[in-house]
């Protein structure tokens, strides 16, 4: 009731599209909404989720929605393709991406992947990331067989239709495997020769950014407050999270919850320019993008003077 009393009379509508169905990585957004942190700042936030992660940035670029959750590697491709999108905040500040094998596979080192079948999900950059990891261990893409298994990463690995999967989320898929009674073993890609990056970011339309800058600033402010609150109160945070949608209350989500907490960006609006420079250089070097972009086209710090 206090929050409402403080709310300005005119609420600003803001549409946010997640990258996928709601899951623990989205906790700061969902919990901020639950706690009324958006409303407190005069924002009326509408949360939507797509079935195809490649869609939200396009809708942002087309002006159909205000903010979308996307991935940093994707951002570079999007900007390179001329989409007027720009990163305005970070949700998860490390890679979540991991290469996953069965713990009982005997694979201790990625050089053992030679001749193996590797499944991956739709990513767009999975091949490059894998290539970098393989080269780090003296292999090339030609030494493995890649299969696009779409959204069936875990089943494909558990049932041994593939020997490894890449593009798995380290906070999610290992828990999922465990639930099915199979121990998984992740290789963290930033330890295997890939430059580190922000896994989940908020993107906005660059062309209309200035009109909305203030609203976005308040939005990121709310996210920051929600993140801090979740980390301070993980159990209460969980309760708020599942209150958003009771069907979220599953053992798997619970397991993923704990694995996700340490990965939230504590200063979501802050920008680490070097990450964007380095990763862009990495993609450029591998021919994934055509040219280098000024940093301001890629990412902004909303609070920068």
């Amino acid at each position, binding site marked *: 009731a206090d929050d409402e009393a403080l709310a300005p009379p005119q609420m600003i509508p803001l549409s946010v599209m997640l990258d*996928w169905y709601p899951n623990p990585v989205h906790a700061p957004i969902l919990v901020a909404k639950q706690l009324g942190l958006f409303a407190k700042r005069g924002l009326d936030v509408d949360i*939507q*989720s797509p*079935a*195809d992660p490649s869609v939200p940035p*396009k809708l942002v670029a087309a002006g159909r929605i205000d903010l979308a959750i996307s991935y940093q590697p994707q951002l570079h491709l999007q900007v390179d393709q001329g989409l007027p999108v720009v990163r305005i905040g970070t949700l998860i500040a490390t890679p979540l991406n991991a290469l996953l094998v069965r713990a009982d596979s005997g694979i201790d080192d990625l050089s053992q992947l030679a001749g193996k079948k590797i499944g991956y999900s739709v990513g767009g950059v999975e091949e490059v990331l894998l290539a970098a990891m393989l080269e780090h261990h003296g292999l090339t893409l030609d030494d493995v067989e890649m299969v696009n298994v779409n959204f069936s990463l*875990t089943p494909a690995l*558990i049932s041994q239709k593939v020997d490894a999967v890449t593009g798995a989320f380290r906070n999610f898929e290992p828990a*999922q495997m465990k639930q099915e009674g199979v121990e998984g073993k992740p290789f963290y890609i930033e330890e295997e020769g890939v430059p580190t990056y922000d896994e989940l970011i908020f993107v906005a339309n660059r062309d209309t950014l200035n009109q909305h800058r203030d609203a976005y600033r308040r939005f990121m402010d709310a996210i920051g407050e929600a993140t801090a609150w979740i980390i301070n109160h993980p159990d209460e945070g969980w309760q708020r999270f599942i209150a958003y949608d009771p069907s979220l209350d599953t053992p798997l989500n619970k397991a993923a919850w704990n694995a996700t907490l340490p990965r939230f960006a504590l200063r979501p609006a802050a920008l680490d320019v070097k990450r964007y420079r380095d990763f862009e250089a990495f993609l450029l070097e591998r021919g994934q993008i055509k040219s280098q972009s000024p940093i301001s086209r890629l990412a902004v710090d909303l609070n920068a003077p």
Partner: protein
Amino acid sequence: MSDSTALHAARPGLIGKLHGPTRALLALILLIAAWQAVITLTGVPRYILPSPLAVARALVEQRALLAHNALVTATEILGGFIGGVLLGLATALSLARFRPLRRTLLPLLLISQAIPLFALAPILMLWLGYGLWPKILMAMLIIYFPVASTGYDGLRQTPQGWLDLATTFGLSRRQTLLRVQLPAALPSLASGLRMAASAAPIGAVIGEWVGASQGLGYLMLNANARLQIDVMFAALVVLVAFALALYFGIDAAIRAAMPWHRDRLEASA
């Protein structure tokens, strides 16, 4: 000596009774048995194919969730079915009516059919947003083609004699189309309607995959992403029930709409 005493007497009653619900029930039991057999025989893990029992439990436990989402999907299916049938019929009639249209519209129709809907999804979402309409549109698109296609085929094949009769009666082309060719195409159209009825739920579900925050399709994808395969299959079961209900409903409606056909079918059944 050949004796055919009372060979063909009084059969309709029996067949009539076994129509619809009973038939479906029988099939359902068979299906569940087959399902369990597959699991037992192949040892397929439960995260790929859960047991009927697990799904039944999910059906009961998640009934509120399922009911809520089922209502949404039912609306989409019904809306899509009605819209698709109307649009399909209109297309079939236009194709039959206007010759120049045929040469160009027919391939366009085919193209529309051959494009995986997912490719169009972002475009549709861009134009229509995330509401009920894109899903109804998807269901319509799926239903549309069988109706248009069989309807057109049926309209083309009107026996010449009736067309001649219509000519001497001084009917306009429009009258001929609606009063002669259309009823004559009913059996063929019925074939398309039955097919459409069983495909309608898929249309709605695909629509939901393209973007939704409720509905059985949403629930399925969502549950699948979370590896709650039992919930996913529970949603699937509800969806299949819809498809069956729609099919048998349409089938009954078709029978009612073709009373002259009934005797013949029963006689030769």
